[in-house]
């Protein structure tokens, strides 16, 4: 595509603009509720611009609730999960991509099956197992559980990225004297950076927004993660919309930052030379 057609460019930018608008509009609404004073939330709800502006909700959330603690916990759990899952999944995805061996079909089937039932069904057994391992009310317990939940998807993702890299690369490296593992590390790994970045991004946000197990496995207030924290704004009598939306808005910042950080790797293309011949 060497010619750049001005009409085409305009259309492209318009399309991108529409996507961004669609993605951001509900979040704008979230923010709008977060900065609207409580009394006005129901009366001026449908106006596009907020009629009054207050930062009270944000102040309350940051200083008067335990939200900063919840954030910290979520960061630890999500970061830990992302790292461990990616390590395990890269290894497993590589195996699926490069080897054919007896039992491969069974293992793939087992991984697929883990995606096919509502996690609700295993909550009681997992609870009992974690209680037995004394991992209840522990961030490590959550990390282990989340890693297990995310490994199948991450593995399949990494497998498809590995599939896109020709085997000749590491074969060539191995003929030159590397072990398979060294070939993997030095030659193949750098080429999977876009895939790796995508995987990290997904796992982080999946762990970041998980609610059910965080709710069930954690009891004490100082270990709660932020989705559970959001739920505390819903009492039997009222939903504290202003504060909840403020907390929700704040929570989006780390995800956004994390993603902006890794998207640099996402768009690294393959260097042309390595692929040819």
């Amino acid at each position, binding site marked *: 595509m060497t010619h750049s057609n001005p009409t085409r460019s305009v259309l492209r930018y318009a399309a991108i603009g529409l996507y961004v608008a669609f993605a951001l509009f509900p979040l704008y609404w979230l923010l709008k509720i977060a900065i609207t004073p*409580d*009394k006005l939330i*129901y*009366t001026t709800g449908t106006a596009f611009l907020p009629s009054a502006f207050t930062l009270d909700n944000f102040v309350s959330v940051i200083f008067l609730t335990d939200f900063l603690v919840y954030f910290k916990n979520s960061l630890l759990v999500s970061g830990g999960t992302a790292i461990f899952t990616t390590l395990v999944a890269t290894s497993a995805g590589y195996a699926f991509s490069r080897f054919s061996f007896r039992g491969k079909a069974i293992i793939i089937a087992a991984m697929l099956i883990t995606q096919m039932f509502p996690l609700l069904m295993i*909550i*009681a057994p997992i*609870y*009992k197992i974690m*209680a037995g391992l004394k991992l*209840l009310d522990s961030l490590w317990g959550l990390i282990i559980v989340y890693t297990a939940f995310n490994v199948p998807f991450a593995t399949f993702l990494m497998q498809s990225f590995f599939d896109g890299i020709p085997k000749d690369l590491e074969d060539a490296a191995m003929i030159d004297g590397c072990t398979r593992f060294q070939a993997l590390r030095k030659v193949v790994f750098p080429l999977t950076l876009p895939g790796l970045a995508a995987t990290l991004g997904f796992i982080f946000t999946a762990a970041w927004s998980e609610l059910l197990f965080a*709710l*069930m496995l954690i*009891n*004490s*207030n100082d270990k709660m993660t932020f989705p*559970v924290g959001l*739920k*505390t704004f*819903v*009492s*039997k*009598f*009222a*939903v504290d919309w202003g504060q909840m939306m403020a907390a929700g808005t704040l929570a989006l910042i780390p995800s956004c930052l994390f993603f902006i950080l890794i998207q640099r790797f996402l768009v690294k293309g393959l260097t042309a030379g390595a692929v040819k011949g």
Partner: protein
Amino acid sequence: MKQLFRTVAASAVIAATLSAGAAWAETKLKLVEVITSPARTETLNALVAEYEAANPDVDVEVISLPWGEAFEKLATMVAGGEMPDVVEMPDSWLALYAGNDMLLNLDDSIASWKHGDTLAQKTLDMGRLAGGKAYTLPYGFYLRAMFYNKRLLAEAGVDTPPHTMAEFMDASAKVSELPGKTGYCLRGGGGGLNGWIMYAATMNGSNEFFTEDGKSRINEPGSIEGIQFLIDMYQKGYAPKDSVNWGFNEIVAGFYSGTCAFLDQDPDALISVAERMDAADFAVTPMPVGPSGKAFPTIGFAGWSVFKSTEHSDEAVGLVQHLSSPEANLTWTKKVGVIPIHQGAEQDAHFATEQFKGWFETLNGEEYVPTIMPIYLKNFGVFKEMSIASSQDALLGNRSAEDLANEWADFLTKEYQDWKNAQ
């Protein structure tokens, strides 16, 4: 300097030993609250601290479950073997936990309690609803009354709050003529069963659920009229079109946002309404009476229960007793929005206001007969659940009131038979 250092070091060692010693002697109790809000947690922590101060070797951990997930979470904790010692027990859960033989019988401890005789009789009656024994010590009552928006009524030309059902429908019609406003904040979604039962009973002139032969009374002609009343309200547009899906939060929000003028609710709704509406704009009146001159507002409760699995039953019971003592109970019920459990509560300044008038009039008036939902039925929870979809169908006009009533009657009659047989 050296002297100072030694003193400090010595004190540190002593302090460490003392606290270690105290930790050794400590009994740890787990208290789970399920109807959680920041205000309640704060109050609860204060009351618990009083107990801990009076019992220095007991340490209480308060676990607060978000109400939306509280049932599932507590059930999972119990299923996984991690039972708390003391738990806040809503009336609708009592039959389940008591029926599974998980709760301690508190009858003896109430009898030997120094504050046991100031308990209102209703307190003991309700606490014994499941299985005839006091598996819970109620901390307060939920009683239905009618909130009304004074301003909307004035605008619509309604001078006095409605006293009868007919006046109620009439007033709702008038308010619905105002642009963008409707009369009744109907609870068509989860938790709306109380409304259907109340109006059915009111039009039927009786709050008995079952005849002497054990047949459900919900499909008697009077009851069907009551069910039809609500359907008419919705179909005629006297309730917001949205309300077929409305749960607790939506009806309360509908009321305080001025969208609908009438709200039948318990004193706990008063808390959120009072925060967002001027006291001059709303008031509370007893539920409207039916053709028989009586109304049958539902009454419910929540209380404290002790799990049988507790390893420290004396301390656990002691905690419950402390929380239920007259002073603690007054503090708690004021914050929480329920009617207190000890006699003479309405003398207190807090409960003598215009807003609480509605409830105390209900409690003390002859025309108002509090109705207790049949929570002793084993599958009452299931009935509550299935009533949602079936009643929504009726509101939307997909089935008749009679059809709905018959389906309910069949289910309830069978449940009642099962219960009778198990007695």
